[in-house]
């Protein structure tokens, strides 16, 4: 691993929704050059954590730092400017706009955006070049997920937080997506929430295990898979 320069540092994050405590003093640091995974049962706070780091939610306690600067409570457009972006658990593109317009929209307020040649090359790589004139809503789910990634890449995001990137994909598509993500992690920082252990095992250098809003443990995929608590609490049911 290079340097040990943090991409983001989340420290003691507490996020409450009325009576529900979705995050209880969660601290996570992701370093440059490392792919971080996050697993945990439904409702354990994974999406909420991404919402806090990317500025969708302002936490009641704790702080988020990016490149050493405090960014807690920044709105998402400022997080995007700082290079921190995310995809959504339910795929999200501008469905009525063409693929070309989706991409153009992603570049309109991205100061560090790719030039036209780089965009063309990235389009080729993600095999979306022939779909430019199609409304994004009529793409297949797999294509929409690739478009989501493309729209972050053209901004030259430093970190893309992927919320269940293979959710809803067929077995063949999952394999193809794994290849895409394998290449992607060489281009940019990746944070991956997944239930599919296969994805986590192949991609993540380090895995955060969430349980009921708390960070249960963190370790390499091998380490967490060997932990009895993880096996009992989570994999016992979800491992497939």
């Amino acid at each position: 691993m290079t340097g040990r320069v943090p991409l983001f540092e989340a420290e003691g994050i507490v996020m409450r929704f009325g009576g529900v405590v979705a995050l209880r003093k969660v601290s996570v640091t992701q370093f440059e050059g490392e792919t971080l995974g996050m697993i945990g049962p439904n409702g354990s706070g994974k999406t909420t954590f991404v919402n806090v780091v990317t500025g969708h939610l302002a936490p009641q306690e704790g702080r988020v730092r990016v490149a050493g600067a405090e960014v807690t409570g920044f709105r998402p457009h400022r997080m995007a400017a700082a290079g921190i972006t995310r995809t959504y658990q339910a795929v999200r593109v501008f469905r009525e706009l063409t693929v070309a317009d989706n991409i153009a929209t992603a570049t309109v307020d991205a100061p560090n955006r790719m030039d036209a040649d780089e965009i063309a090359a990235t389009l080729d790589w993600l095999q979306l070049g022939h779909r430019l004139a199609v409304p994004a809503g009529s793409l297949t789910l797999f294509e929409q997920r690739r478009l989501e990634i493309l729209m972050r890449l053209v901004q030259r995001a430093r970190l893309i937080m992927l919320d269940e990137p293979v959710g809803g994909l067929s077995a063949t598509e999952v394999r193809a997506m794994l290849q895409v993500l394998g290449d992607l992690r060489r281009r940019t920082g990746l944070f991956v929430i997944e239930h599919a252990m296969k994805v986590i095992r192949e991609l993540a250098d380090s895995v955060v295990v969430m349980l009921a809003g708390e960070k249960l443990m963190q370790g390499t995929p091998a380490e967490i898979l060997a932990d009895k608590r993880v096996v009992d609490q989570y994999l016992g049911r979800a491992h497939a």
Partner: protein
Amino acid sequence: MTDALRKHGRGLLVFAVAAYALPLLLAGNRYFAFIGGIALLHVVWTAGMSLLYGYAGLMPLMFAGIAGISAYAAVGLMAAGFAFWTALPVAALFAALVGVGLGLPALRLKGFYFTLCSLVIQTVITLAFVYFVNLTNGDTGISQIAPPAWFGGPLQGVGFDLVLATLAVGAMVALVLIVEAPFGRRLVAVREDDELAEMLGIDVVRQKLAAFFVGSLFAAVGGAFYAPYVGFVSPRSFDVLLSLNIWLMVAFGGRGTIWGAVVGTVLLAPLPFLLQDYYKVKDVIYGLLIIGVIVLLPGGILGGLGSRAAAGTGTQSPGLRRKEAA
């Protein structure tokens, strides 16, 4: 910028020819010419509403109120001795700023809630027109508003109609330039999915604010010209029905299309005058039109055509390089 003009050049040219021809063709009948002038004035308003509703996805029911503030301000300044051409920019800027100030709380709201809030604001503005009798002459309104001066004489008749034609053409050119600029792309993103737009780096609140200011300026400029053109203003001239009518013209013609608003205006702006003798059924017809548009024509007359045309341009150019260059 030149790209935008090239793309819509033919449309703008056709519109300009029609706009200037209209007053000349109707010059023989002052009543029809007046209706034509009113329609041209409405083009300025629908261009602003098109920006707000068609592109930014906001339905501002205080649109007429802002036009009214500008109209009263212009009349007040003229009464205080200022020339119309001095009063115009001052009144328009003042009204647009007041509009933004009043709209500020509403701009944090989405969709239906924004519309509801804007309805309340419009109601307050109308009440203010009635209440501040010293400034507005209350319900009675202000009549015999003097025409603007124009090369030594008063601006009236065909001359005024042609000035309104120039104004309408200017409004459409401005709309094309705004919509084709990166600003237009941001507004469409906000309309389609504001949360996603924000995530992609677009400052949603700021874009809405800017759109609201520019849209209000269209409302205000139209309002300032309305006063001397019609020669009479009252709280009823700028009530919520005007906001709804202008909205209807945009929705009827085709939301999010440049020329839809113009088509809607041409078809609907003369209606109140042509139906003047059937005053009772007028509101019924409007009600039916509003329901008809919402239920039968959610995309407006040009809506279907517009999306087909958009798909067409997509195939011939990836759009990327063009946008990159812009």
